[in-house]
């Protein structure tokens, strides 16, 4: 009580610290730099290019939303995203004969289950998520290869093509990304599940002692993540019209990069869907600028890595300044 009455605490509390201002400054400078680089790049500023950026952010973005749930819940990352997407993509295409909606539902259920099981092990048993998902990636790829003999799965119907629709000139996946971003953000902010997830992510032991359902919350987060991976899988499979174990490509690291570039710390307890969305768009925009300026894939990947590194450092400095 005495401590709380200390006069020094009073005013300054709401003021921003110098470190916060500095990190904000850096962010502003970077955004301006990206904009300038974009403006000075031929054809960057065009409706078509904006559409292209959103399109290329959309599939990674939906995956990254799922990973955001996992990361906020304190289970670091899943390294099995690519393989999950590939396997679910196969399921989606081979279920086309049932019709689009049943196939989509089936895909979401399979994705949620495959990922949810891992989440249950992480949540209830406290297994290390990084190693567990490495194991899962091997298992999923192995089973998928074993079942299909490595042969690409072709669609058993044509319903999937609706996912390639472009209402008002924008691919459906962009609308889906925006809708899901808002949905996930709302869930995180407004529901009891969202708040428990932040608490579990920040301090698992404390959450358990406080009587929060740690295992259930974690499992739910992973189930949600799996469902979101499945949405990406359906769109990717529909886009490629065939699926094999390599369908997921580099999605795992792309999604991690997007979440981290959005400023969600890997240690959990913080983060938001909107930030992840922005992270995905930032990476897509920078890659786009580099591509338009004629840089090779290697340089694009290099810059992606540096962006992630920069954001990680900035976010950390900012959080620490808040703790001080």
């Amino acid at each position, binding site marked *: 009580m005495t401590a709380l009455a200390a006069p020094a605490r009073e005013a300054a509390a709401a003021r921003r610290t110098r470190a916060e201002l500095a990190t904000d400054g850096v962010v502003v400078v970077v955004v301006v730099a990206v904009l300038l680089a974009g403006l000075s790049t031929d054809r960057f500023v065009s409706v078509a290019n904006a559409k292209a950026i959103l399109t290329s952010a959309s599939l990674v973005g939906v995956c990254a939303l799922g990973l955001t749930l996992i990361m906020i819940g304190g289970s670091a990352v899943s390294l099995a995203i690519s393989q999950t997407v590939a396997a679910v993509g196969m399921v989606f295409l081979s279920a086309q004969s049932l019709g689009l909606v049943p196939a989509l539902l089936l895909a979401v259920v399979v994705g949620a289950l495959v990922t949810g099981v891992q989440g249950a092990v992480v949540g209830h048993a406290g297994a290390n998520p990084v190693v567990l998902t490495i194991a899962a990636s091997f298992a999923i790829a192995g089973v998928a290869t074993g079942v299909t003999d490595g042969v690409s799965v072709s669609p058993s119907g044509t319903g999937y093509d609706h996912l390639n629709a472009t209402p008002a000139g924008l691919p459906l996946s962009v609308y889906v990304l925006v809708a899901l971003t808002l949905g996930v953000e709302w869930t995180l902010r407004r529901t009891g599940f969202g708040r428990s997830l932040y608490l579990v992510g920040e301090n698992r032991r404390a959450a358990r002692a406080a009587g929060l359902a740690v295992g259930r919350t974690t499992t739910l987060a992973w189930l949600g993540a799996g469902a979101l991976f499945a949405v990406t899988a359906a769109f990717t499979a529909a886009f490629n019209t065939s699926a094999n174990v390599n369908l997921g490509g580099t999605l795992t690291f792309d999604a991690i990069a997007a979440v981290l570039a959005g400023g969600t710390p890997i240690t959990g307890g913080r983060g938001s869907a909107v930030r992840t969305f922005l992270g995905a768009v930032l990476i897509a925009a920078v890659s786009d600028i580099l591509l338009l300026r004629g840089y090779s894939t290697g340089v694009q990947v290099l810059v992606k890595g540096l962006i992630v590194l920069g954001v990680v*450092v900035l976010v950390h400095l900012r959080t620490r300044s808040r703790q001080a």
Partner: protein
Amino acid sequence: MRRLRLARPELLLPLTAFGLTLVVFLLTPTWADVELSSFDVYNTLQILARLGPLALALGLTMIAGEFDLSVVGTYALGGMLTVQLGQDDWRVGLLAAVGTGAAIGLVQGALIAGLRLPSMPVTLATYIALLGLTSALSDGLTKTYSNIDVTLWVDQPVLTVFSPRSLITLGLFALAALLLAGSRWGRELRAIGGDRRASRVAGVRVGRLLVATFAASGALSGLGGALLSFSLGSANPDPGVQPLILAAAAALLGGVSLAGGRGAPLGLLAGILAVALLAEVATVAALPSYVTQLFYAALLGVIVVVDAPDLHAGVTRLRTHLRPPPVPPAEETP
């Protein structure tokens, strides 16, 4: 109260893993239609040489409570630099790989220690960036190393089962074991892995130690890449994630705890030998690659689940509920 030293996980796990895989290896002829020969030992050691430096690099940082995902990036870059700069003189290539690796480790270590950043996101970002850099350096192409004498030399059989490459790798493990067991480095490495804040308060030079560990990790990965390039006579800009996964499996089998603070180089060696033996069994028995994949999945899955802290609680709870409550010892009742 004192438990047997052997029963401690940093010894028990690697010894069990090595023992079991050795038995599996020796029993291969009974279930697969093959003969074992000294070449199989040679090949096992070649696999060890390929993964050993990575496992050691990863293991050291894991003991310190960090996780250096960038090892594979450094490995790729080291291999590429070796090939591109070492065409005329292998020493230049080797030096470039090891030096660059150490420098990358130094920078990462300084970032992580100086700003007290978690290592996972930093090394992940570095990993992505290094793969990009390697690919940019080579234009995305595999580069050939034309000094075939070096290629032949590093893999020539020595004493039937060894090669210079595997001997170098074994030497690295011996050196690390000596350093960690014989100096305060080992103790302090485990200390900062076990409780960073407490070590700092106790007066351990946490920052310096972390930077040195990451530098060592980088140098080892660079060296691993260089040795691989010498051996393959080429450098591939993207080695994939398989080396990382096997190195991580080796480190975990080697008794290193994911939570940090536990592990020793000789345990790591046993762990990597176990993984190499398994890989050799898969090769000798000609298992299809997806079966091998499933096998590694099962192995890692078992390790990580057995290591899972809350599972122990669950098992204890279950056991307690299945058992009738113990009668309090009569003689102690007041």
